[in-house]
C-alpha cells in the first residue's frame, strides 16, 4: 500500500489562503490512507475540526472507496456535487495519485492534505516499511526474497559497501546489512551465491509509467 503522512499544517493553511478560500470540502480515501491512519474517517473529522477552528466552513466530506480510481471518484464527486459546488476548495487526504484523480473529477481547486512517502509493507498496525521500489525488473529471485535496491540505503545490487561493520548497516546502524542477510538466507536455503548483478535497466521505469492491457494502445 501507499504510505502517506499528514502534510505540514502551515502548508495546508497557506495553500487555502493562496486562493482566499473560506469554505472547504474534504475527501479522504478508504484504501491506503485509511490503513495508514492519515485519510480515513477519523482523520477527515480531525482535519474538519481543525479547519473550522480556523474559521473556515467545511461544506461536507467523504471517504471514497478507492480515491485513485477515476470512475469511483467521479461518482463520489457527483454524489457530493452540491457540497463541493458550495466550497472554494477541495482538500484531499489521499496519496498524490488520489489528489490528481480528485483534481480530474471536480472543477474546484484541489489541494493535497498528505505527503506520499513510499510503497509500504504493513509490519503491524501503524508500522510500515519500504520493501519495494517498483523498479520494473525484479531481482528477488536472485536475492533470496530480500530487495537490495530498496532495503540497502544506497540501493547497491552488489554489496556490502565498505561501511558494513559486524554485519550491521553503515547508514542505518541499528539494522543488519541487507547484503549480509541475503547471503545468510541463500546459504540457509542451500542456494549458490547470487553472483554479480548487472547494472539496473532504468528504461524499465521511465516516467510517466502507463499500462494498457485492453488490447489496444501501447503500454510503456
Amino acid at each position, binding site marked *: 500500500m501507499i504510505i502517506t503522512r499528514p502534510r505540514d499544517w502551515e502548508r495546508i493553511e497557506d495553500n487555502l489562503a493562496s486562493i482566499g478560500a473560506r469554505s472547504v470540502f474534504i475527501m479522504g480515501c478508504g484504501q491506503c490512507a485509511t490503513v495508514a491512519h492519515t485519510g480515513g474517517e477519523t482523520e477527515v473529522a480531525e482535519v474538519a475540526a481543525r479547519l473550522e477552528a480556523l474559521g473556515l466552513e467545511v461544506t461536507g466530506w467523504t471517504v471514497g472507496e478507492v480515491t485513485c480510481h477515476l470512475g469511483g471518484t467521479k461518482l463520489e464527486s457527483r454524489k457530493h456535487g452540491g457540497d463541493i459546488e458550495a466550497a472554494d476548495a477541495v482538500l484531499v487526504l489521499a496519496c498524490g495519485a488520489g489528489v490528481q484523480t480528485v483534481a480530474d473529477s471536480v472543477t474546484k481547486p484541489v489541494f493535497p492534505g498528505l505527503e506520499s512517502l513510499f510503497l509500504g509493507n504493513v509490519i503491524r498496525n501503524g508500522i510500515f516499511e519500504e520493501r519495494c521500489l517498483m523498479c520494473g525488473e525484479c531481482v528477488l529471485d536472485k536475492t533470496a526474497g530480500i530487495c537490495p535496491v530498496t532495503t540497502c*540505503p544506497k540501493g547497491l545490487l*552488489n554489496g556490502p559497501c565498505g561501511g558494513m561493520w559486524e554485519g550491521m548497516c*553503515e547508514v542505518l546502524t541499528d539494522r543488519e546489512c541487507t547484503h549480509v542477510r541475503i547471503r545468510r538466507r541463500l546459504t540457509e536455503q542451500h542456494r549458490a551465491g547470487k553472483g554479480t548483478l548487472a547494472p539496473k535497466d532504468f528504461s524499465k521505469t521511465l516516467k510517466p509509467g502507463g499500462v494498457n492491457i485492453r488490447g489496444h494502445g501501447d503500454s510503456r
Partner: protein
Amino acid sequence: MSRLRDMLSAGEFVVTGEVAPPKGADVTAMRAAVELLAPHCHALNVTDNQGASLHLASLAASRIVLDMGIEPIFQQTCRDRNRLALQSDLLAAWSLGLENVLVVTGDDPRAGDHPNAKGVFDLDSTQLAEIARGMNEGHDMMDRPLAGATDFFIGAAMFPEAEPWDVQLARAEQKIEAGVRFFQTQAIFDMTRLKRAVEALRPHGAKVIAGVLVLKSPRVIDFINERLAGLMVPDAIADRIRSADDPAEEAIVLATEQVREIRTIADGVHIMPLGLDAAVGRILGNSS
C-alpha cells in the same frame, strides 16, 4: 605505464599515501601535503568528495598531483554521478594521463555536508570496475566501441577486519572477477586478519596494499570510532595512545611497528597520516 602496476607486478613493496582536495579553489595546502608525502610514496590517492562532503574534484586534483611528478590514484565514487558521467570521467582521466583508478561505493550523502543530496548509486563499485575493464578493452558499458581505449590499473577497497568474513571475501572475489587488480584496505589493526585476506586474494592474482592510520591523538580515535563507517580502533590500541605521555609520538611508534609487520605480509602499505604528514618519512624509514 602505471608505475604502481609495474612495481606490484615485479613484487616490489609499494607505499601509497593520500591527499584530500580542498574545499575551495585554493590548492596551496594540498600541494604542500603532496610535497611532504611524495618523497616517501610511490603513488598518492586523491579522494573524491571524501566523507560525502564537497571538495574540489578528484579528476582535477589528480592531474595537479601528476604534474607535481608523482603518480596519482584517481578515486571515483558511485555516489555523485550516474553511469554516463562516470564513464565520461574515466575517459577524461585517461586523457589527462591518470592511469590508476580506485573505484569505491562512496559514503551515503546523509553522512556529509549536503545531507539533502540525492545519492546517485546508479552503479556499484563492482559494476564500475567492470566498466573500467571494458574501457581497457576498448568498449563502453553498452559494448559499443570507443575511439581509443584506456589502460587503467583498476583498484578497489576492501576491509579485512569487517565480519562476517565470508561476505567480505565473496565481495572481494567478485571485484577481482570484475577486473580489480589491487586492493587498498581500510586501516588494519589485527595482522592475523590481514594475513587471512592476503592469503585468500593472492592466488587470484590481486595485490593487497594494507592501510595504516596514524592515530595521533585520543580525539582522532574518538572521531574514528564515532564517525567513520566501518572502522573501530581496538581497545588495546586506543588505550596505548590514550595513556601515552606524548600520544603523537606513540602513534608514530605504533605505525612504525605496524608497517614493519605489514612488510612481511602484504604487497604494500597505504599510509593515512591524518595530519602527521611530516612523520611519514620517519615511519617508513624506521620500519624497514
